[in-house]
């Protein structure tokens, strides 16, 4: 049996406090998928090469396969399971669905989380900025073009929603 020591860990995942007893050698990816059954986060290499396991740690995209879970004590972790607000899909999710931003869907969770971080820092990114931000997320199906278009569409939707909300307030 593997002899790795078990350690108590506190994480906030998708706005829920989680206390979990984990083997100290486990990565954040393993804890999310195996201990917390959040299998929406995928893995394509477990070596930090493909981006499929991207989640947000304190708002920043991280490769969960390269991060020890213990490095995430008290951190705010966002995964694909928390991207929708209950039954309200995030504009990125809708845009990917509508514009062919996914095919097999395996890289999609990582792609969406990276894109979310991008749009939170840059409301209307240029194509070059989208390419830069998402270049660490590999996809073998789509050829990326419809992914880029999806991110652009989502940015427009978010901006329009915010503008109309601002309009209502004023």
């Amino acid at each position: 049996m593997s002899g790795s020591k078990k350690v108590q860990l506190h994480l906030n995942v998708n706005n829920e406090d989680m206390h979990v007893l984990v083997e100290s050698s486990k990565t954040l990816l393993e804890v999310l998928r195996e201990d917390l059954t959040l299998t929406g986060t995928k893995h394509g290499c477990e070596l930090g090469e493909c981006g499929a396991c991207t989640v947000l740690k304190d708002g920043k995209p991280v490769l969960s396969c390269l991060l020890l879970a213990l490095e995430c004590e008290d951190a705010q972790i966002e995964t694909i399971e928390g991207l929708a607000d209950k039954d309200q899909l995030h504009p990125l999710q809708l845009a990917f669905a509508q514009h062919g931003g996914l095919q097999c869907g395996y890289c999609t969770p990582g792609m969406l989380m990276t894109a979310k971080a991008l749009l939170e820092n840059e409301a209307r990114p240029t194509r070059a900025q989208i390419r830069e931000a998402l270049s660490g997320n590999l996809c073998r199906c789509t050829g990326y073009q419809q992914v880029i278009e999806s991110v652009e569409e989502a940015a427009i939707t978010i901006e329009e929603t915010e503008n109309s909300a601002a309009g209502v307030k004023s």
Partner: protein
Amino acid sequence: MSHREYSSDTFRIIGKPRVRIDALSKVTGQTLFADDISLPRMLHCKLLRSSLPHALIETVDVSRASAHPGVQLVLTGEDFPVEYGILPVSQDERPLCRDKVRFVGDPVAAVIACDEQTACEALSLIDVSYQPLPTIATVAEALQATEAPLQNYAEEHNIHRRLAYSFGDVDEALAQADHVFEDTFLYEGNTHMAMEQHASVAATDPDGRVTLWSSTQCPHYVHRALAKALEMPAAHIRVIACPNGGGFGGKTDPFNHEIVVTKASMLLGRPVKICLTRQEVFYCHRGRHQVTMKFRTGVNNDGKLTGMHLQTLLDGGAYGSYGIASTFYTTALQPVTYQLPRYSWEACRVFTNKPPSGPKRGHGTPQPRFGQEVQLDKIAEKLQIDPAKLRLGMIAPANSLTCNFLKVGTIGLAECIDRVVSRSGWKDKHKKLPRGRGVGLACGAYMSGAGTAIYWNKMPHSGVQIKLDRSGAVTVYCGATDVGQGSDDVLVSLVTEVLGIETIDVKCVTGDTDLTPVDLGSYSSRVTLMMGNAAIEAAERARDLIASAVAEKLEIAVDHIGFAERLVFDVEDPNRNMTFQQAVICAEEKHGTMATTGSYAPPKSAARFPGGGVGPSPTYSYTAAVAEVEVDEASGVVEVTRIYIAHDIGRSLNPVQVEGQVIGGVYMGVGEALMEESGSRRLPPKLSDALVHDNPSMLEYKTLTMHDMPEVCVDIIENPDPNGPFGAKEVGQGPLLPIMPAIANAIFDAVGVRVDEVPITPVKVLKALEMQAAGHDARVGPKAFPNIEWPQAMFVLPPWEGGDGKASNRPERKRAAKMHTMDKVKGASEQT
């Protein structure tokens, strides 16, 4: 019969941009891939893989591993006496090697333990004693005599198979041509690199039945392999194909790990899971064969081809896999793209101590397509004919037979060429851009499904069942497997269209050998066409049952019954209607429990010669592409700035998905053209001298990132094909084919050098530029095709020379036919 006119004006679902049915599940992370499955009491499996490329196994001592705490079971080759393999002619694999290992990565033993970490620890406690054998590292070595061939069924040395065919007298056709072009090309092997690593979970029930969930493109073939390798009735085995996280051909073989976990689960009575590491996925391979090619092509001054002689040599790696089929495919489809009056070919596949090659997107056809399209560019250059015009002059007529007896249906290639030429501004760019920038054109054609099953049988290639009941719910069942291409969406949309309901009303159950009728699998671009036709048949039968009941109830003539907007109505007076649910209730009252089936088998092939089963398809798609490149002469780096592509799809069922498939094909093509390569190298002698994979990681195996991907301008050409579901043809593979040669041709247009090899790396470009600067022939590529002793060619007379599709080796017939046939060929080509 109910009202059954379909046209693009009346389609409600088909042809409309639509969110695919599995999209929301995928964007929320809810889709369960194989590795997402976790079952109570589940154990984990890891495989010990050979560290030597070629060796006899002397002993495998598992005693220390078995004693390791947490280990439940250790299996070796002794536990698996029966061989299996995808093709009936090459049953050469074992779940775990028994006597011999044939490549670094061949599995030798399996550990099943409480967790992956423990299983990995135990692997290091297995003692294997090997007796090394000489390594066959290259095709050249494989062609030479050896004392230790990899496979005992090799024809000779390490030659797996040699094939030779002649469709008409090609020597004569070349002798009579105004010009004969002779060119050799090399296409390096590359791999699928689907984002999802292969994973499988097996669970046994107490009655002795077993279920395997797996990331497989072909649950039916896995089902057959399990039954054979485990020597148990197929009826007691259930294979469920999980949604694949990409396949591209890499999950079409039945895999050793699938059989191992199934056996382990049965022995332990507990669920067992395996998930391959990325490195293991690279070693599993089954990817694109490295192919060396030589083309000898006769051309007249007007640009018409008189005949072609093609030779191909494939590096098959260590096992058969789909290799015989791959070998045929390096030759069989050449006459589909362009009319060839006469055609002869020889093909040879060899075994080497490398991961097995197999089918990757385009299966055996991208390599010769690259060669022919680059050669056509050279021909156009020499004859001073525009490359687009040259190709337009050699397109076969629709609904014709090729020289090798393939039945071609609709051909939209001329329209594809016209479209990319006009959209790219070809006429203002070709030969007119400043040095360093260039455009290149190429075309391709691909099957919409293999006309022959992997194993000989007379049963349907795809079956669909539909269940309807008083709830108004419709469930459609089919063995087809969604590998990301959207086949579930195709299935649901076709049924939805026919029954006049909404996609949310139709549930689909796919890829489950217990529940779904057989579909052969997601390969050869067969699913949309074959499953689609079966689905339409099943749905129309359901509609007819409903229509007859509603006609009776509402007293309407049955051929006046229409289905739309969840209503069943009188097409003359739509106010006379009932809801779809009420209509199903009527039908259940009249007919009893409601279920229908549909099945599809491809039309009979016209080829009646042995080997004619590879190549026939119900219909073929066509594609043309123009690549725009910039070549940096200082670094040799080629940047593809834009791809213009037009694809003849027959009918586009969901334009969003179709465009995605086209762009995805372009993406993979640009990667293959410029960087993707599955290489091998020897470890230093001080280590082991073993032949290992050169780049078994996603960092080392170069693919395009979002940074590198050019803009793609897509045109979809729609000309419904009578053999396709609502006229649809394939799109998953064809669009890849023209990309590599279009880029090579664009590089020539930009800087005047020929790289007759794929991938076209900066090193090769620089080398060609240096040769050019030195005043030499600016070409990088193989100098010659190896000498191979070919068998006597099977001779088949082309249809226009009086051939009936049967083989004939009678030279007198050949000679007698010759004289009057050339006139016929000329007549036939003039008609086009």
